[in-house]
């Protein structure tokens, strides 16, 4: 008996997943959990969610199902979760769009701060500033000078209103104090097609989409938008190195539950998220995508709440200044 329990303990410790479950006498979860992704299947956010969901399933001992509710720039799915039963069985995994929605949409059916319980940050995907292969500037310095000189003659692809690629472009133009000609696309996939074909000049997109093209030499990379260089693209400088010190942009993803969800459940989910993010498999898959799981101290409700509040303020100003609105 004693031997058995020692063995059990060892297994539990090794698994690390179940060690604290017995701490609170909760039987949550007793049924499958649904994570709503407010975008269509196959996109980067969907991929991130599926990876995390698989690891959380293992930890929670219940199936974690991913459900895609796309539409209206992610506000449809988010609105659905805001209105869902706060029983811990319907969650939302949303990205930076959660913080830009209040500025972009005049009548939002939910309040990002009030209608959700944050669970934790998941990942921050860096972005890259890229251009067609035969674009004239060679270095980041060249590019900045070129864009300043040519302004509206430079065409710049984005994935439409409120997309990460547009936000990045807004910040970039704001930092250089120039206007380029924005060319919207139905997603960054078609935009990449035109960039590869040399139909447009520039784009700013998540590493998830650009890394393989950069490595293959199909497009030029000028900079990453994070404060430090990133591991998958060690030769690409940061914007700070090019003189744009305050430029810091990453597409952060967070996990939320509807407001009013039991504190114990949130705690359990935070723990599960942290376990999932520490999973080697998740780490490797994230690395393939050109990103990394956030450290455990960021995968907390406090960190996500702080991030969300700060970002709502920041984007409110940028979007207002640019005069962009989805409605």
């Amino acid at each position, binding site marked *: 008996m004693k031997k058995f329990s020692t063995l059990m303990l060892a297994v539990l410790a090794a698994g690390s997943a179940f060690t604290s479950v017995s701490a609170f006498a909760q039987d949550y979860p007793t049924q499958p959990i649904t994570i709503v992704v407010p975008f269509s299947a196959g996109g980067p956010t969907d991929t991130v969610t*599926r990876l995390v969901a698989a690891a959380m399933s293992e930890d929670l001992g219940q199936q974690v199902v991913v459900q895609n509710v796309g*539409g209206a720039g992610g506000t449809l799915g988010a609105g659905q979760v805001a209105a869902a039963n706060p029983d811990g069985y319907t969650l939302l995994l949303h990205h930076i769009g959660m913080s830009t929605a209040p500025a972009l949409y005049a009548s939002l059916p939910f309040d990002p701060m009030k209608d959700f319980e944050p669970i934790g940050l998941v990942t921050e995907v860096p972005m890259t500033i890229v251009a067609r292969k035969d674009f004239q500037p060679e270095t980041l310095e060249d590019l900045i000078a070129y864009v300043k000189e040519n302004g509206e003659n430079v065409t710049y692809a984005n994935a439409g209103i409120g997309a990460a690629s547009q936000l990045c472009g807004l910040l970039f133009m704001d930092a250089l104090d120039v206007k380029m000609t924005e*060319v919207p*696309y139905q997603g960054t996939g078609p935009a990449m097609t035109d960039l590869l074909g040399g139909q447009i000049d520039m784009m700013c997109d998540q590493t998830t989409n650009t890394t393989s093209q950069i490595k*293959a030499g199909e497009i030029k990379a000028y900079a990453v938008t994070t404060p430090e260089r990133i591991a998958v693209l060690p030769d690409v400088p940061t914007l700070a190195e090019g003189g744009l010190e305050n430029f810091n942009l990453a597409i952060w993803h967070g996990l939320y539950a509807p407001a009013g969800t039991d504190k114990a459940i949130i705690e359990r989910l935070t723990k599960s998220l942290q376990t999932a993010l520490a999973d080697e498999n998740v780490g490797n898959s994230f690395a393939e995508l050109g990103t990394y799981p956030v450290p455990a101290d960021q995968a907390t409700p406090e960190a996500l709440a702080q991030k969300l509040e700060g970002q709502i303020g920041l984007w409110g100003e940028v979007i207002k200044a640019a005069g962009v609105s989805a409605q």
Partner: protein
Amino acid sequence: MDLFSSLGLGFSVALDPFNVFYCFVGVLLGTLVGVLPGIGPTATIAMLLPITFSLNPETALIMLAGIYYGAQYGGSTTAILINLPGESSAAVTAIDGYQMARQGRAGPALAAAALGSFFAGSVATFLLAAFAPPLARAALSFGSPEYFSLIVLGLLVSIALAHGSILKALAMIVLGLLLGMVGQDIYTGTPRFTFGLRELFGGLNFVALAVGVFGIAEILRNLENEREREVGVKAVKNLWLTRDDFRRIAAPVLRGTVIGSLLGILPGGGHILSAFASYSAEKRLSKHPEQFGKGAIEGVAGPESANNAAAQTSFIPLMTLGIPAHPVMALMIGAFILQGITPGPNVINEQPALFWGIIASMWVGNLLLVILNLPLVGLWVKMLSIPYRVLFPAIVLFACIGTLSINQNIFDIYAIAFFGLVGYLLIRFGCEPAPLLLGFVLGPLLEEHLRRAMIISRGDPMVFVERPISAALLALALAAVLIAVLPNIRRKRQEVFVEDD
């Protein structure tokens, strides 16, 4: 030489019994789910995608490819049997396929679709293996001006879809284009024609529209005077193609394969046009164009081949450049990434076993599809012997539940009812639904490419005639109109008293 050793490597992967098994499971599941009304290939793949996560990359992607072909074929089956297309290409199949089914020739229609698809798939797979990289490069020279001109050409040529009034067909296309504009404008974010409903921001759902104007409208037609006439389809005469059928489908299958293979390579929406283009070509070239729309087997074999060829060659931009040509390919990218492979120009060099394995498995998948579906033809046709009074409630419910299960959007169900009514009225008044669906899928593309071309050219419309490919396409469009209109005018002069409307 190199090609053969590469293909050898590919077949050694694809013919691994384990992989063949999963390919077969994929084809089977794809067919079974795709055959459900209201669930087209994209939805089928989105639903079945998670099944593949636990498999190793080669097996998972081979199974996924199997699901894709199965779903394509399943969708065509629904279009033929109950006039309910789940994807725009199947709307073309429905035109003559459903008429064939009504005449008791559902068997030959399904068999022609399966055989045509297999042939086209085989040829396109070979193209993919032999010429993928240069073809993908060539496709990149298509920018927005070229796509705009291509779509204009496609729209004008597609008047041939109608077997009745050309004027009404044109109006249906334009109505479709307008319905395609519903939703948030991607350029400015302005919500258009949404009645303030957030559910409409992403536009009308294709499946809801198709289910409404095809499926529900057809049911209402059948309820018109059911006391007097027998509704639904006639007893099945034969399951297999006759010698005459074989003779009739040979050339359409060949032409469809060529048309589909070429259009499928274009990542900006070429595959959408493939089935429509093939149908138009067959009707133009046929000695009996009057049979089209009344159960011409050429109108099933050609478009089905074109569609399957395009489905195959649309893998070219994905596999060689890492860019998705349509939603199904976007799902594939997601699947690649989940398997730890980033699709892009390097896959062919870094993962040769995977690259060639998938290509070889496409052929294997097509073969399995034929082996699986030819015997199933009998089963599907048997389903038609279910009395219509039992069948149509099933269609209504399956369509509602199927549509709901795709997006979880209640609004899509209301849209089915609305378009069921509008579709019924228009069909009753002598209009045909297929041009409407073509307009609907091309509307957003037409606007997007026109506006983008104008932005990039800084407002200079000459861009459409200065770029050679675009100019050639527009010239073709002009020629198509002249060819269509001139004989009409001449005939009208001769037969002023005969109204053929």
